[in-house]
């Protein structure tokens, strides 16, 4: 028989017992829908994280902190005090200028940028003041900008602000804010309110991974920090962490070596990806958990296919006998039935994937107009075509295997016995 005739025959057989076929396909649809949807969520979140990782952009740097000597849990030895150390908030050791100088000496270190401790109280464009926080902008960090650009460390008095402040500060839109003045208010070491006027050069998109603060240059951060910590010898030249940059073409072996050197010198060194990677792991764990439900449904659907095919073989025994008597060989009979099984998988998977994409579109529309309103570029669900094809192929293969046993039974029928079956 020609392949086209095999296909036609199997499709024709499929619609013979419509209700039975529908119910079998329905089980496949439910399983596919579940798997496609959970993968959709996973892909959506992962795509967003990858985008954000791209946003972070600093691939050639470690976040370096001083490693605190353990105070030791109960029962372990008490550690002797070292007067050279200084503790910041949360009991973390702070980095000093001496640390920075030491790190700068390590081979392959290109630059060391300390993070300055500073705290602003509000931002304002005139009368009304709004609570805000400020972050020190690191060169190379890619922020998604709604308008303008990120601050330039070579320029004085620059600031970028998150999009959500726009209307409060009296700006019509993102472009309207560019070039205007923004006042940052903070308390100096004498607890007096100080205001600093900066020029807005950019407006940041909202993001999940936290750039909801205004960004200022390292020089501005240093100035604020100096003002706030003046007279406090502990904090004036101490930093909670530093960004240690290396050459972006540095081979992985040397990056690893640099990391171990830093760790040998009692610093912790993590890339930004290391820190954000944790987030991906948690998401993956949740997705796999949800996928298990879909897989169980599909297994049940697989048994449904086995059952449906066995019933079909029994119903069509005399027909199989006739076909064999008329010269159809075992392979042909096997092909007709296994194509029918694979078709159940195929149609179920196609409908299931289509439904999940439809549901995903509705969910995305709802999400982006409600709880994800401020997160530009975040689609709750994403359905990359290669993934959907993989799901489709997997289910067709599963259905084929489910149909293998009944198909073999059909192909082995003795035509004489089959013709006497009625």
């Amino acid at each position, binding site marked *: *028989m*020609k392949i086209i*005739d095999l296909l036609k*025959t199997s499709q024709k057989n499929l619609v*013979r017992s419509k209700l039975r076929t529908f119910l079998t396909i329905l089980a496949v649809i439910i399983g596919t829908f579940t798997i496609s949807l959970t993968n959709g969520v996973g892909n959506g979140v992962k795509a967003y994280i990858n985008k954000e990782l791209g946003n972070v952009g600093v691939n050639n740097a470690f976040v370096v902190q001083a490693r605190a000597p353990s105070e030791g849990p109960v029962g372990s030895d008490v550690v002797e005090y070292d007067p050279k150390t200084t503790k910041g908030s949360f009991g973390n050791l702070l980095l000093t200028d001496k640390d920075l100088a030491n790190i700068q000496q390590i081979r392959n270190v290109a630059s060391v940028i300390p993070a300055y401790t500073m705290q602003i109280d509000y931002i304002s464009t005139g009368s009304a003041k709004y609570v805000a926080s400020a972050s020190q902008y690191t060169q190379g960090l890619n922020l998604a900008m709604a308008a303008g650009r990120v601050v330039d460390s070579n320029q004085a008095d620059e600031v970028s602000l998150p999009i959500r402040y726009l209307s409060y500060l009296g700006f019509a839109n993102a472009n309207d804010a560019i070039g205007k003045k923004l006042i940052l208010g903070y308390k100096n070491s004498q607890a007096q309110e100080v205001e600093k006027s900066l020029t807005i050069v950019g407006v940041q998109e909202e993001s999940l991974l936290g750039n909801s603060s205004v960004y200022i240059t390292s020089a501005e951060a240093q100035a604020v920090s100096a003002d706030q910590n003046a007279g406090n010898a502990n904090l004036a030249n101490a930093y909670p962490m530093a960004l240690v940059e290396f050459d972006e073409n540095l081979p992985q072996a040397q990056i690893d070596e640099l990391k171990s050197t830093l760790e040998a010198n009692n610093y912790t060194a993590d890339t930004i990806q290391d820190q954000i990677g944790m987030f991906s792991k948690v998401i993956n764990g949740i997705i796999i958990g949800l996928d298990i439900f879909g897989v169980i449904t599909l297994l049940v659907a697989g048994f449904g296919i086995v059952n449906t095919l066995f019933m079909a073989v029994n119903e069509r025994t*005399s*027909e199989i*006998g*006739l*076909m*064999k*008597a*008329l*010269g*159809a*060989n*075992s392979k*042909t009979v096997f092909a007709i039935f296994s194509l029918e099984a694979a078709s159940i998988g195929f149609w179920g998977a196609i409908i299931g994937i289509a439904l999940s994409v439809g549901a995903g579109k509705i969910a995305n529309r709802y999400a982006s107009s409600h709880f994800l309103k401020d997160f530009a570029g975040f689609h709750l669900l994403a359905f990359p075509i290669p993934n959907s094809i993989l799901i489709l192929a997997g289910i067709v293969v599963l259905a084929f295997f489910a149909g293998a046993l009944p198909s073999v039974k059909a192909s082995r029928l003795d*035509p*004489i016995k089959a*013709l006497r079956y*009625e």
Partner: protein
Amino acid sequence: MPVISAKEISKIYETADATPVLSGVSLDIAKGESVAIIGKSGSGKSTFMHILATLDKPTTGSLEIDGADALKLSSRALDSLRNRKFGFVFQQFFLNGRDTSLDNVALPLVIAGVPLGERRRKALEMLTAVGLSEQAKMLAANLSGGQKQRLVIARALVTDPEVIFADEPTGNLDTENGKIVTDLLFGLQKEKGITLVIVTHDTDLAKLCDRVVHIKDGRIVA
């Protein structure tokens, strides 16, 4: 040279008593001949026909088709042989009621892998030959008993077979329809020079054949 030559065919089913269904049956069938195999129910006549048609294998004996040893052929070769050389007419019709008359007649051609257009043309030709051209688009289930048997004959003839095996071709029909079917069968047989092997218990039908072979208790008696 006979089309089919069976020698000393025996068939024993593996049951408790192991009584032979056929014991040492020999028969040569010449090309273009019509042979009736007649016998009572349980005489082994149907089993003999199945063996002649390569649908069943004998326990002992030899079977030559066109001079070649049919028992040594692979099952694939036998499938192909049945498809090309043999046509079958069954008492129970074995039609697919959900398909049209045309599709039912075309089934052996579908199995042979004949292209769609040629399939249609040949099937329609055969339907016309048995007087069912107007019923070509009708579902087989909606045909009368006589029409169904004519459809089965059309299906048996569509591949231009050399031999037609007919198992009780008039068994399910009344006298009038039985006559129509036998006229058709013998008419086409003579017209096309086809070899006809009929299994029946109907002596009137058997008389129409060139030769009658009586089978009783697994042996040829006359």
